[in-house]
């Protein structure tokens, strides 16, 4: 017995060695000496973006537009159609690793939603749920280990060290399956807008994932409209009015501003303020050169606003030690009157948690020349473990099923569960049941394996949907995209996490008064020296190559 084990481990060691030897030659072949050079798209054969074939679905109550305003549905479509006609899986096990922002899911044996998804997909989904606060560490560990990978790994937009290199080296190249017209074999993937694919971007010229589409607004200011109305705070506000509002909403163990720990791991905490005051979205591109938003006077003004919020004591005092999930609870129960959150949180799950305690709204940017920041158009992307083409196609069919658009039966199952158990339908539309609160696509995060292009529909909450639609129409025409979206920079790939951390630490130090505002220059130069300048140069090259 003993020698068999020895031989096996020896083989494994040899395998690891072979991988180690093969991979660097791959990088050097791409003409870059340092690790990470191979992820750049400059000078590569570029796989074509998947052809966009929109789904002709139900007519919305208010149409979307190119600025990113979503189609608004106040009512649920009367007729839903099937979009997947062929079997998806073959009964095999499929291991998936996804991030989660909620409690762990109930085990499959007691989970009707999970069972129904398994049945519809014809596979046995084994889900490794990674809680959001541990996501960075868990992914770093996964990438560092030589272990067998899950079949599907979901990457969020969080800058992870070497993530692009890892995906390139160890995950399947999907270019031949979804590039150009090939995507038409998966109609629901073909219905994903091109900006989502571009937001994900290519790695070394190839398509390595399926994007999780998101509407264009970036992380936004969620506000408690009821509290604001009570205090007489207007929807459109100036910087002064915003600051006064936060002060007014603070007191009696309640706070105006709900920040949390991970906002200070990068630009998350300042996004709303920088956009309000007209700072460019992360980068500005002019004449082929890239300039960071960090160096602009508008960005410093945004820092000043955040600092004033802290000086006036309007922020939740333990913001720097509170997790995002805890802060969401504080927002939902009215302890804080506003919080920064991803636009994806405009969802039925959020409405359920607020439980009609107050009317949800989004805060409009306060500056006169606001440039609200757009997100990358994706929440992240799903990658597959390298496998036979037949297996890859099976996994693609899973993504295709879960990406089924609004107005299809597949969408209903993926988003609301089983009719009669998780939801019922009547003249007003979808009504979710108590079981839905315990079993849904947030707790079992199937929505991070494939997701439909978002429409604005909040079953049972048409007023909120209308308010968000109004906000989109007021805000999005002015919004700006990040010119670096989808461009690869080797330095960003290898040092992105460190660079974000320098920024996040610097913003926190100045916001919370540990450093004077004048120290921001030092933070910027620290960032520039640590690789920021290099990223700017690489982005410029990549930009030129993609023209």
């Amino acid at each position: 017995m003993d020698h068999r084990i020895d031989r096996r481990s020896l083989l494994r060691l040899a395998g690891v060695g072979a991988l180690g030897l093969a991979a660097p030659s791959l990088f050097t072949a791409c003409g870059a000496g340092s690790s990470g050079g191979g992820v750049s798209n400059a000078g590569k054969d570029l796989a074509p973006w998947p052809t966009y074939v929109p789904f002709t679905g139900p007519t919305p109550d208010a149409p979307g537009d190119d600025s990113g305003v979503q189609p608004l549905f106040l009512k649920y479509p009367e007729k839903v159609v099937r979009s997947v006609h062929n079997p998806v899986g073959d009964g095999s096990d499929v291991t998936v690793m996804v991030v989660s922002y909620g409690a762990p899911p109930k085990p499959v044996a007691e989970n009707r939603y999970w069972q129904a998804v398994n049945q519809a997909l014809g596979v046995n989904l084994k889900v490794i749920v990674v809680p959001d606060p541990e996501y960075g560490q868990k992914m770093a560990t996964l990438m560092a280990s030589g272990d067998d990978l899950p079949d599907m790994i979901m990457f969020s937009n969080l800058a992870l060290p070497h993530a692009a290199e890892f995906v390139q080296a160890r995950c399947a190249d999907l270019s031949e399956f979804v590039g150009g017209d090939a995507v038409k074999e998966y109609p629901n993937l073909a219905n994903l807008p091109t900006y989502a694919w571009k937001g994900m971007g290519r790695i070394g010229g190839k398509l390595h994932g399926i994007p999780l589409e998101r509407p264009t607004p970036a992380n936004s200011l969620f506000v408690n409209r009821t509290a604001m109305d009570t205090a007489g705070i207007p929807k459109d506000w100036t910087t002064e009015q915003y600051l006064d509002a936060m002060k007014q909403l603070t007191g009696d163990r309640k706070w105006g501003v709900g920040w949390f720990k991970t906002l200070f791991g990068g630009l998350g905490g300042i996004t709303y303020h920088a956009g309000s005051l007209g700072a460019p979205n992360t980068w500005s591109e002019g004449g082929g050169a890239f300039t960071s938003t960090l160096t602009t006077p508008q960005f410093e003004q945004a820092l000043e606003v955040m600092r004033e919020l802290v000086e006036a004591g309007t922020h939740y005092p333990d913001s720097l030690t509170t997790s995002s999930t805890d802060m969401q609870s504080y927002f939902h129960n009215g302890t804080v009157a506003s919080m920064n959150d991803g636009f994806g949180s405009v969802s039925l799950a959020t409405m359920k948690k607020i439980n009609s305690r107050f009317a949800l709204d989004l805060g409009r940017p306060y500056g006169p020349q606001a440039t609200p920041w757009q997100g990358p158009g994706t929440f992240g992307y799903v990658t597959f473990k390298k496998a036979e083409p037949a297996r890859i196609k099976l996994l693609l069919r899973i993504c295709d099923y879960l990406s089924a658009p609004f107005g299809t039966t597949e969408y209903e199952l993926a988003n609301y569960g089983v009719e009669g158990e998780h939801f019922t339908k009547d003249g007003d539309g979808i009504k979710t049941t108590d079981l839905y609160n315990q079993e849904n696509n947030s707790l079992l995060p199937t929505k991070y394996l494939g997701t439909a292009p978002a429409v604005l529909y909040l079953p049972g909450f048409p007023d909120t949907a209308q308010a968000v639609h109004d906000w989109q129409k007021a805000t999005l025409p002015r919004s700006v995209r990040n010119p670096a979206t989808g461009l690869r920079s080797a330095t960003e790939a290898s040092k992105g996490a460190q660079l974000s951390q320098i920024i996040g630490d610097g913003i926190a130090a100045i916001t919370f008064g540990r450093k004077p505002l004048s120290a921001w220059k030092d933070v910027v130069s620290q960032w520039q020296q640590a690789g920021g300048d290099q990223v700017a140069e690489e982005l410029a090259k990549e930009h030129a190559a993609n023209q």
Partner: protein
Amino acid sequence: MTILFRLGTAREAFDVSMTRVRGGTGTTGPPPPGRRPERRGHLRRIRADRVLLLVAAPALAYFLFFHYGALFGNVLAFQDYVPFLGVSGSQWVGLAHFERMVTDPLFWNAVKNTLLIAALQLVFFFPAPLALALLLNSIVGDTVRRFVQSVVYLPHFLSWVIVVALFQQVLGGAGVVNGWLSTLGLGGISVIGNPDAYGPLVIAQLIWKECGWATIIFLAALSQVDEQQYEAAALDGAGYWRRLWHVTLPAIRPVIVLLLVLRLGEFLSIGFEQFFLQRPSVGPETGEVLETFVYYTGFANGDFGYAAAVGLFKGVIGVVLIYAANKVAHRLGEQGVYKA
């Protein structure tokens, strides 16, 4: 002294059991006359001690694998290590990481914070268990003493996550104390997230959590002090403080010195979790220590090579410190940890 003493007993136990093994197996008696014992001496000894050797094997394997084997990981300090390329696939960079270390202000900031907290620990935490042990030792009633001992041991078994959360719930800006203060209409106190209060806070947490547990060795030493010396001193008219100074402390001095030497050897290892959990609240300027620096550099930022170099630096300093402290102990006439 304790360790040497224990080694001594272990050795005796070893000899005793060896005799037992020899006697018990019955296969190996004293060498028969005419046979040359030294020829097959090693083999005979191995055969004779095979049970003991088997017993020792797991421990040996543990040290070889987890301590000596892990030392090879230090090659990362000389590489631009990328985890999924492995040691064989990553590039060698010579001393580049160490050069970077010298000029890296973030590294020196971590060193500064570590030294500061380590010094605070040495001055305030190291004597605390001794004082508590003396106090416990002076409690006469056995039941009372056992009860107090159990109570002060308990926090040791709580994880840092709980301890830190507890302190935050009590002292945080939205915590209990500030809640009371605001109900009373008084201004709040800023402890959590206040860089000036960070040093005292982490020491207070450490004392709360570990002080009781750390008394165990002192209590054991105190129980060894000869009662007759106290009686003699009392007869000569020595009060409590004089007995403490002239009898108790000299008697347990070797243990104090031993623990001090061990502590100095780990001077830079001030703990990870406690600081990792609280770094975000005060930022890296105050909260970054070498352990969190290594973590953020290596795991969060994927710069394993540089992190390994910093870890190696810390290890080397530790070896130098333990060597120096041991030398000083010898100069003072104490046994220290080991004798060369």
